[in-house]
């Protein structure tokens, strides 16, 4: 087990606790950067899709994982991001202006609806956000001149400084673009969580009454968290639009909202890493099931493809299994494995038993 001797407060403030940690992040980023040379176009497109989902997952994680606000309407912010970006680019704006504008539009809209909505919590907030989603969906259909209505809209091809970042013509470039944006947002998110703003999010999540007693404006903090959350999701929506190419309102269904909620829950609530692990699982699982099914067909001659809904059922059962057996999510499981490895052979079964909460009161809330 590594023991880190801290010699200054900076070692607690820095993003990485020690050099090996820093090296690990650098290696991971390096590996992600050279991925186009290692895998074919099919897997590169899958990786791009996973990164976009991780970005959307990070957006939702800010609200659900770090501020305790459950949202069932985040597909609405994906939609706002995608349509704003596409509409602005169709109007002639370059991508480097349209993308931030898409994030800003989604973020401002999120903060705006958050001001009345954040007074609610738990299931009531979830229902309110679901209602917002329905309104946005209807608006998308009604605003036909901008959004293309039911017919849909084309996300223009991205060209930056004469270089094409088109999703089909230059997939490698598009992948790097997405990777860069995701890395940047991850860095900002990690910064946020080590700063006073991030701590105020956690404070609001864990105890509203003492957050107030410490001088934290709970309503403003929640609105800020929800705004940031929908802004990041809006960025993901814009990229999703470019990835799909041509889309209409059906791309952003309520199923997408639920899948996003699964990303953060199965990934591990309250951790940035969880958003990535959850995204890998959610985007990778259907592919994995399809590969396994084809394998069974080829090797044993059993055609499982003929059974309707089998993929969805297996997928759902895996998700249910996760929620029952690993509520801390994939990242929580990974932390346990890491401690087990670090302390080998001294790990005990009950090292991770759930801690009791003492005398928790709901009285003053």
């Amino acid at each position: 087990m590594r023991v880190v001797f801290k010699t200054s407060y900076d070692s607690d403030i820095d993003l990485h606790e020690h050099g090996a940690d820093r090296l690990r992040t650098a290696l991971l980023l390096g590996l992600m950067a050279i991925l186009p040379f290692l895998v074919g176009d099919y897997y590169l497109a899958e990786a791009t899709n996973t990164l976009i989902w991780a970005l959307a997952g990070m957006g939702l994680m800010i609200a659900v994982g770090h501020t305790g606000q459950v949202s069932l309407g985040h597909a609405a912010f994906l939609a706002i991001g995608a349509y704003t970006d596409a509409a602005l680019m169709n109007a002639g704006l370059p991508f480097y202006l349209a993308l931030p504008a898409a994030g800003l539009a989604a973020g401002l809209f999120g903060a705006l609806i958050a001001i009345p909505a954040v007074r609610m919590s738990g299931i009531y907030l979830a229902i309110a956000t679901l209602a917002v989603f329905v309104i946005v969906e209807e608006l998308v259909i009604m605003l036909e001149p901008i959004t293309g209505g039911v017919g849909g809209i084309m996300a223009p091809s991205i060209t930056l400084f004469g270089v094409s970042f088109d999703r089909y013509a230059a997939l490698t470039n598009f992948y790097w673009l997405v990777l860069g944006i995701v890395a940047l947002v991850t860095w900002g998110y990690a910064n946020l969580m080590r700063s006073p703003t991030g701590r105020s999010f956690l404070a609001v999540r864990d105890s509203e009454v003492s957050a107030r007693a410490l001088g934290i404006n709970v309503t403003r903090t929640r609105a800020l968290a929800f705004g940031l959350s929908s802004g990041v999701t809006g960025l993901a929506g814009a990229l999703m639009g470019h990835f799909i190419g041509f889309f209409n309102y059906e791309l952003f269904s309520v199923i997408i909202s639920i899948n996003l909620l699964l990303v953060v829950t199965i990934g591990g609530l309250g951790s940035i890493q969880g958003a990535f692990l959850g995204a890998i699982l959610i985007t990778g699982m259907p592919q994995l099931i399809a590969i396994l099914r084809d394998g069974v067909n080829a090797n044993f001659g059993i055609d499982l493809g003929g059974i309707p809904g089998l993929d969805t059922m297996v997928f759902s059962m895996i998700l249910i299994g996760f929620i029952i057996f690993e509520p801390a999510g994939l990242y929580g499981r990974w932390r346990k494995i890491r401690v087990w490895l670090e302390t080998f052979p001294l790990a005990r079964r009950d090292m991770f038993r759930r801690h009791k909460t003492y005398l928790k009161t709901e009285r003053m809330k």
Partner: protein
Amino acid sequence: MSLLEVNDLAVHFGGVKAVDGVSFSVESGEVFAIIGPNGAGKSTIFNLISRIYEPTRGSIRFDGRDITGLKAHDIAKLGIARTFQNIELFDHSTVLDNLLMGRHTHRSTSFVEDILFLPKVRREERDHRRHVEEVIEFLELEAYRNKMIAGLPYGVRKVVEIGRALSIGPKLILLDEPASGLSVEETREVAFWIEDMRRDMGLTVLMVEHDMSLVNQVSDRVLAVANGRPLALGSPADVQAHPDVKAAYLGTEAA
């Protein structure tokens, strides 16, 4: 002029008069205790001062300023810190982070600066940390610095909550039953800390407490309340000898 002046304070929940016409003033540098039987309205008075409840009538003045119209989150900025009877810590954070959350009123960075983590943010973080380390040293919490609250024993959580209140850097600290659920040794430690807060930090302490040995040991003046109404105000010995106080705790003898 007194640091805290409470004048004819009352709060009614429907027909229940939880607090009904309580007046007292706390002098700067004083340890002032509020005692009374269960349901007397002691914690309600605290919740009125920290603006969680809206008073039906009366006023609260702090440092010469009327705070009755302020919001709950404006109170800490004035220099009033508090603890809760049933520990309200941030369970899924470390002791260090809990204490750092107490520095919220001293932050000057915006969320955009935080996201970019500008050098200014780092400078402020170091500064917060220095203040928090002083509190950690004062309360001897070094061993728990990086421990999650959820895994800590009850006695330590009580101390962390006092620490979080001290991290605000307050003028007045409201302690809601600091000794409840603590062992005799732990209670004695709390008594020493309260004395140190007053002597070394120049703090004014207002506390609600049931443990009479603690009240006798540290407090200058005591206010006894029952059924939301004040019974007696004076030195600990005088208040305990007061016939109304005895009657409230033990009941009156049958005539």
